[in-house]
């Protein structure tokens, strides 16, 4: 149990970042990850201690996201200050531009075909290896690679600016 909890805690930052990239919203990422933790705790007998936890959690998060279950749940939200809180510090304009561009890129990723989007986000934002991503998505590593290649190719092909929109 202690090992499970430690692994869970170690895996959650990656899962949260993946969830944030999917939902582009802090509260919804929290909901998704909390549901994911709840499910993982309830189903932990299905997890064997010699297997890495991250792919399994990623799979749970992906399923929850697909099912849209997390939208129906009400959770207490922990007080949280944006990691990007830079208000006290002098910030250059180029830095702000970079942040805006980054946000736009995330919005464009959301418009990729589902399978490409999940492969790309698990690897780049979640920091999962190709092998872990393959396990999470239930496909061969070669498929993960080709999905990532297609995702990146598509992002290059489609550079027109996308209107920033807020997510509710």
């Amino acid at each position, binding site marked *: *149990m202690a090992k499970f*909890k430690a692994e*869970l*805690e*170690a895996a*959650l*930052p990656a899962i*949260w*970042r993946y969830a*944030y*990239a999917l939902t582009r919203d*802090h509260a919804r990422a*929290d909901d998704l*990850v*909390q549901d994911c*933790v*709840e499910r993982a*705790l309830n189903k932990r007998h299905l997890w064997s201690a010699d297997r890495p936890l991250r792919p399994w959690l990623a799979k749970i998060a992906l399923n929850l996201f697909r099912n849209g279950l997390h939208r129906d749940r009400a959770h*207490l939200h*922990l007080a*949280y*200050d*944006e*990691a*990007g*809180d*830079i*208000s*006290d*510090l*002098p910030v*250059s304009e180029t830095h702000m531009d*970079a*942040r805006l*561009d*980054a*946000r736009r*890129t*995330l919005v464009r*990723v959301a418009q990729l075909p589902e399978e490409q989007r999940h492969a790309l*986000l698990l*690897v*780049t*934002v979640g920091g999962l*290896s*190709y092998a872990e991503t393959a396990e999470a998505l239930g496909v061969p590593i*070669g498929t993960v*690679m*080709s999905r*990532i*290649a*297609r995702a*990146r*190719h598509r*992002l*290059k092909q489609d550079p027109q600016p996308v209107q920033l929109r807020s997510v509710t």
Partner: protein
Amino acid sequence: MTHAEDFDPTLHRYADGEMTQDEMRTFEARMEANPALAARVAEVMALNEALNMAVPSPQATYFAKMISNISPDISPRSAWPRRAVAAVALLGIGLALGYWGGVTRSAGQGGVPESQLLASASAAHMLYTAEVLHPVDVSGDERDHLKTWLTKRLGAEVRIPTLTQEGFSLVGGRLLPAPYGAAAQFMYETESGQRVTLYLTPTVQMAVTSLKFNTHDGLTAVSWQDPHWHYVLVGAASRSEMEHLAKRVHGDVI
């Protein structure tokens, strides 16, 4: 318009850190001979960086709390007291600042709890500022050597801030163990011998935070993070004085 290199699997394995050292060397040789490939790699890396910048990274304590909130019996105590205790057991000193750093909010991203960083930085401060004969490994006279050496050891470009306008000259610096890997410590002192130290260690995940203050027993620690480094500035000075120094350091290292 299709480019063959877009679908070259080695390109993606390279950009995503899936290669062995040997494979990387081979691929880098290929890149040198193929500008189109090199340009595409740069694009893909920029895309990765943009995605990572768009996604915040809550600190580890955030998830410890989340887990214990969901299932109170699985984590009877939240994570920070144990971390603080561990830090104290390891370091002996640095207790107060470390503990306080854990109680307040943490800037330690990606598994580096701020309490540990504060404990390490303040322990190193107390240990070495008390030294009269050997306060540093490399003296401030050898600034360039110090910079080259620490950059090499820490794996990211180290910039040594200048605080002469504030009346602090560089005594020198040293390499230290850190909670995860290594850290550099730079020591500065005034003509009257008042010493401050700047502790920096590479970040695990990219994030930018504002300045945070921790004060205990006359010692003030100011900590913050930029995309590449965690910084902790420690000194026996008032909060406003330390804030002024920290802002100068921050402006110098950008």
